[in-house]
């Protein structure tokens, strides 16, 4: 056993209550600036402002700032964490995973780092995996970090380059952000952290993929199936590695999977019953596009008009909003992204 391991075996007392809770939700702010959207004229329905990370920031820097805030707010150290789940499609390096760099910068040499790439549903998948591991007592304290520096896909763009209309739509809404939170039990907080912090209980959670319209929002290159080389110089010059979105196709597909999720998986909670105040959806399109399914668009919280598309970090921003507000007790939080991958969660404030 490595001598610098502070925590003991992952097998824990059976007396410990293992209801998973979300707490310590934090967002990176150093070096992140809101800007007026320079692409408004290019795209109808573009957000009026976007968020940009300073050029000298690496995604791991934003991730570490958020994760550090989370640990400090909860009175925890990285040694208390026994798993990091990193949700990102924008790592510092092509590989190894961003999780490795985040853990190193947080000062850990032992905590395992799982890296998942689930687009906007990434935080829901992380919640799903973390909550199962906590309930099963296979982990005690899971740090979830979401990092998306989406604007950097297009940073190589220059005026002489012709990009498609679908790529212009993605460029008009891509923003940068990082966020973090902990999934653990109340007992663990009492023993090792701050038991007074506000927490969210996960009442119900669903994650799933509907691949019928997988190409409605995608980044096609690099592709291991492209020969002789997965990404060529010509591909880069022609911008073939930029993201794109076919909005009408994505709207149709994501509405379909959203309806499936609500009808089949949240039937015991009709949206009207659950939400005294809070419904939140984050997707690469405006939440109003889901009016057909949700039918409560005047109550849907949507970051898109003000901050653009933040990928899985958009869900963390909504989590922070949930956990900080006092008026309502429950909320319905949805993330929809490329795949089409969807995550939905009913959360209760304790």
């Amino acid at each position, binding site marked *: 056993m490595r001598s610098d391991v502070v925590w003991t075996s992952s097998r824990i007392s059976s007396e410990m209550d293992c209801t998973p809770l979300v707490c310590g939700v934090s967002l990176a702010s150093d070096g992140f600036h809101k800007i007026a959207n320079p692409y408004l004229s290019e795209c109808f329905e573009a957000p009026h402002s976007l968020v940009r990370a300073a050029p000298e920031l690496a995604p791991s820097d934003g991730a570490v700032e958020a994760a550090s805030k989370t640990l400090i707010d909860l009175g925890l150290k990285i040694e208390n964490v026994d798993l990091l789940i990193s949700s990102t499609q924008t790592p510092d390096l092509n590989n190894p995973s961003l999780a490795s760099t985040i853990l190193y910068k947080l000062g850990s040499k032992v905590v395992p780092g799982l890296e998942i790439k689930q687009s906007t549903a990434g935080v829901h998948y992380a919640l799903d995996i973390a909550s199962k591991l906590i309930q099963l007592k296979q982990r005690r304290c899971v740090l979830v970090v979401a990092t998306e520096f989406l604007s950097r896909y297009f940073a190589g763009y220059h005026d002489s380059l012709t990009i498609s209309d679908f790529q212009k739509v993605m460029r008009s809404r891509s923003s940068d952000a990082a966020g973090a939170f902990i999934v653990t039990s109340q007992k663990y907080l009492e023993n090792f952290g701050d038991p007074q912090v506000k927490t969210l209980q996960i009442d119900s959670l669903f994650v799933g993929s509907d691949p019928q319209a997988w190409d409605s929002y995608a980044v096609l290159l690099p592709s291991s199936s492209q020969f002789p080389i997965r990404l060529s110089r010509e591909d880069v*010059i022609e911008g073939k*590695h930029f993201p794109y979105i076919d909005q009408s196709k994505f709207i149709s597909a994501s509405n379909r999977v959203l309806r499936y999720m609500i009808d089949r998986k949240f039937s015991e909670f009709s949206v009207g019953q659950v939400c005294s105040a809070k419904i939140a959806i984050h997707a690469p399109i405006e939440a109003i596009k889901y009016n057909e399914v949700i039918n409560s668009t005047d109550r849907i919280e949507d970051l898109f008009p003000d901050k653009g598309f933040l990928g899985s970090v958009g869900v963390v921003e909504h989590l922070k909003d949930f956990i900080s507000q006092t008026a309502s007790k429950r909320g319905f939080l949805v993330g929809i992204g490329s795949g089409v991958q969807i995550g939905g969660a009913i959360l209760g404030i304790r």
Partner: protein
Amino acid sequence: MASIAAVKHFVPEQIISNDDLSAFMETSDEWIRTRSGIEQRHWLRRGNEKFKSMTNHEMVYNAALQALNEAGLAKEEVDAIVYATISPDNEVPGSGVLLQQLLGIKDPIPVVEIRNQCSGFIFGLMVARSYVDSGSSKCVLVVGAEIQSSGLDLSTAGRATTVLFADGCGVAVIIPDTCSEGIHQILGIKLVTDGQYADKLGIRYPGFSRPVTVAPDDFDNGATGLFPEMDGKFVFKMASHFMPEVIRDLLKEHDLSPAQLKMIIPHQANQRIIDMLQASFAGEVSVFSNIAHYGNTTAASIPIATSEAISKGLIKSGDLIALVSFGAGFSWGACLIRW
């Protein structure tokens, strides 16, 4: 408790021998064999159109059907997919959703896309085990799959890594253990990450640490940032230390000893590492190796090796086996299975 119902593998038809490599780079069979133990590897359609072209997920589909058939399960019974790869069909979304589509699974199911390099399969087993043990899934496909041949430097400048990496996939079917004897049970998993050496093994571009993820200039001067880079001696030193350690730590956590192990199935990175592992458990357990024929298939390495060990009758019911990985990150881990 989660159990492994079946493990099957699939590799592309085309075999590239060490002599084939020496036709386009300065290397030799003797040089490759003595340094890595590799005699040949499978690459997807490398300059020979008579071999069938396929994508990452199409390759996996072949192995998945075999594994499901072995497990006596239908495609429609798959209720979650955990897909570990560093060479997906597209950058976004991952290959897991494409596999779901190819399997004809229409209702949304969880599809987890894992990026943990050589340890991806064991991380995938951790996720799958949680899905099964929690009762939310009854049939999880855990995939380790790579098409690395399209991302290698075929010039002499790239020979240090190009001769090592290869294509292939393995699929495990994870189900609840309903048998009282506990056949093929996953007893425990231990994973570790130490990121201080992230620059010792990996690929830099495209990456997001710079404002530009990849630029045309990156393709100049040998395009080194676009291909795998490795400090081989350092990786060997670290693997030699941590692979045996994580196995021993996991055995100890479960009140087991190395003497009770029947077989270790390691990630197939280099025969010298495999030999080191054998030496560190001298006389106590056999260590499986197939690197001579398959090369280093990163996330696919362990399931391919496990599939072969099973098909060769080397693992019998009741045997205690350990899977062990070490790879870029660095991340490493072990999984104990009561077969």
